[in-house]
């Protein structure tokens, strides 16, 4: 069965299945969503209007036996930043779509009637139905209800109340194999789904034909090599499995790069109380799970199940960036309060990084004091309720900063800066500045050894080599985001060249192609250029590739460094 592009027109409430154009045949994930958005979306359109489109695409390797390949890309023009957006998540949906030979779903137009709908995907295609029962409900209730309606193994993409209210920090939730949630977090794509009036998409892959592999034996061998690289590596094989990404709290604290009290200092006195080490001990003590996979076939298992003091499930996928944001940045040293916030955000359907930066800016504005855990939870509740204050907070950190006349507002292109201070970790500052999607640490998260091993070393406190490092990380990330692989495979790829070669071999075995590693890097470059071209047509220039000026004006203790790149140095990022 050939792969198909499904086009869902929400104006006419019709669906068409199209053959995959030759130019899109070898693309997947971010490469495909960004190509479709760049070709089909008017760059100057209103993100919530009829001309924007919401695109979903599984990665090139998704649905195969390749380890950690179950990521889904969602794309569109971002309601938060106004730039192009690709957001990447785990969960079950991507593998279900790939097995159904769904190359991409393109959702376009706006409904004429003021009601919500659901989409259902199965072997017969996509059907649209009006939805009433679940409107206004949180994601946990939606996922439970859809499982009852459609079966226990169904994949689900849903929005919470924040998405229905088209808030700029709304996310799209994805059901994981155990019925909990992962998120297409950043960029407000939940608001875009809400504008299309789609409450949820269910995906049933029963009877699906599966993913065609041109050369199965070659694929199997490359897949075996790749899995071994992941299992043998101390990060992917042990570190993440034990401590999750929260292991980074104490590391960034030590390095003086843990942004604290709305980016005033690089160390947080309460760091150990919110650290990965403490989280691990707490989870074990309360009978939770320190290791947990976000999708079938994940062998890294960086997720976890965190229980409350009574041993009852509270949250899963409890990430470093969330804990940093409500912890160090909001000065709250209570892991249980942050876990409660994580649960609330999953249910409301809001991005945890944007929400944390927004609450920190709200603290800066004096709405509540820094360190006020209960106040933080109340603010998040206001977002879910859609009160006037909640609506303001739901518009994101930049909007709150503007409403209160603040200058200490850590955003780039309207998106909150995450968990690494750019004055102490300068390479990531270049990524925040130049990313095509606003401040985003995951835009420069991956490594490809074949382009990294030249020249000298970088010092995180100095400028030398940082532009080149960020460029290489962003190119490699664009490539990995297109494969459907989890970005965390990059840890093994950094140390084991055979892991990168195995990825190339798997792509070739799947498609019967003969691309090289350099071709892959070329694809990464072309994706970045394509996305920047969209942004330029939407009105973005190099002037938007800048960090807020307080980073240049204020030193960050303990290293007392400032953001000191010239405009010319930042702009040289694009010299490739």
């Amino acid at each position, binding site marked *: 069965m050939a792969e198909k592009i499904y086009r869902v027109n929400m104006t006419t409430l019709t669906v068409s299945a199209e053959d995959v154009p030759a130019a899109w045949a070898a693309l997947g994930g971010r490469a495909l969503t960004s190509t479709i958005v760049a070709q089909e979306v008017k760059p100057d359109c209103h993100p919530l209007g009829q001309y924007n489109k919401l695109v979903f695409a599984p990665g090139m390797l998704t649905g195969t036996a390749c380890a950690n390949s179950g990521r889904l890309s969602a794309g569109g023009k971002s309601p938060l930043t106004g730039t192009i957006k690709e957001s990447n998540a785990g969960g079950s949906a991507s593998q279900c779509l790939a097995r159904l030979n769904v190359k991409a779903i393109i959702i376009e137009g706006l409904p004429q009637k003021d009601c919500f709908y659901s989409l259902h995907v199965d072997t017969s295609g996509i059907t649209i139905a009006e939805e009433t029962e679940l409107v206004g409900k949180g994601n946990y209730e939606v996922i439970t209800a859809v499982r009852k309606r459609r079966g226990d193994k169904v994949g689900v993409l849903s929005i919470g109340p924040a998405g229905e209210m088209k808030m700029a920090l709304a996310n799209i939730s994805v059901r994981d194999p155990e019925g909990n949630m992962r998120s297409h977090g950043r960029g407000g794509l939940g608001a875009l789904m809400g504008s299309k009036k789609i409450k949820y998409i269910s995906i049933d892959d029963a009877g699906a034909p599966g993913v065609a592999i041109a050369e199965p034996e070659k694929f199997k061998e490359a897949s075996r090599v790749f899995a071994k690289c992941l299992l043998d590596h*101390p*990060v992917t094989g*042990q*570190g*993440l499995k*034990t*401590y999750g*990404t929260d*292991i*980074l709290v*104490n*590391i*960034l604290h*030590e*390095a*003086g*790069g843990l942004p604290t009290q709305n980016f005033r200092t690089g160390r947080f006195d309460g760091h*150990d109380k919110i650290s*990965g*080490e403490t989280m691990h001990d707490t989870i074990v003590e309360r009978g939770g799970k320190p290791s947990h996979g976000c999708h079938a076939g994940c062998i890294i298992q*960086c997720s976890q199940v965190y229980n409350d003091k009574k041993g009852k499930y509270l949250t899963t996928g409890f990430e470093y960036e969330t804990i940093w944001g409500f912890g160090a940045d909001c000065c709250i040293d209570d892991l249980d309060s942050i876990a409660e916030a994580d649960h609330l955000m999953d249910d409301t359907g809001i991005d945890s990084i944007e929400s944390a930066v927004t609450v920190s800016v709200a603290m800066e504005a004096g709405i509540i004091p820094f360190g006020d855990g209960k106040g933080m939870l109340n603010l998040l509740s206001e977002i879910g309720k859609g009160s006037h204050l909640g609506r303001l907070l739901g518009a994101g950190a930049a909007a709150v900063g503007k409403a209160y006349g603040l200058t200490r507002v850590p955003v780039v292109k309207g998106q909150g800066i995450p968990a*690494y201070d750019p004055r102490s*970790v300068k*390479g*990531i500052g270049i990524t925040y500045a130049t990313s095509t999607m606003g401040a985003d640490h995951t835009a*420069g*998260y*991956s*490594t490809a050894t074949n382009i*990294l*091993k*030249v*020249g*000298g*070393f*970088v*010092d*995180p*406190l100095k400028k*030398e*080599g940082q532009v*080149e*490092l960020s460029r*290489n*990380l962003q190119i490699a990330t664009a490539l990995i985001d297109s494969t459907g692989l989890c970005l*965390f495979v*990059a*840890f093994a790829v*950094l*140390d084991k060249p055979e892991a990168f070669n195995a990825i190339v071999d798997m792509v070739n075995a799947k498609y019967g192609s003969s691309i090289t590693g350099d071709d892959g890097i070329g694809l990464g470059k072309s994706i970045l250029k394509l996305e920047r071209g969209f942004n330029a047509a939407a009105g973005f220039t190099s002037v938007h590739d800048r960090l807020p000026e307080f980073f240049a004006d204020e030193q960050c203790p*303990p*290293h007392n460094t400032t953001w000191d790149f010239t405009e010319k140095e930042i702009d040289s990022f694009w010299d490739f």
Partner: protein
Amino acid sequence: MPQIVFSALSFLRAPLQAQGVDCCESAMTVAEGMTPALLLRQLGLEREAVEAVFINGKAGDFETVLHDGDRLALLPPGTPGPHRVLLRIKKQEVPTS
């Protein structure tokens, strides 16, 4: 004798805590001329168990002599993300031009 501020992270904590070593920003008195490499031996840690040492917040050399007031943290293998490169934990070569 110099007094340093000592930390050990993640997997290193259990074996050190079993010896009664406080691993979170604790005051530790060390001998004159002490280096991270010597301290590892004193604490019974294999060199391979520690991927990087942070001295005063910067990835440093295992042979650096520690002085009074210095801050030392031991990091085992297991730092995720590109941070091993960005923080110079892994002295990976990157382009300079």
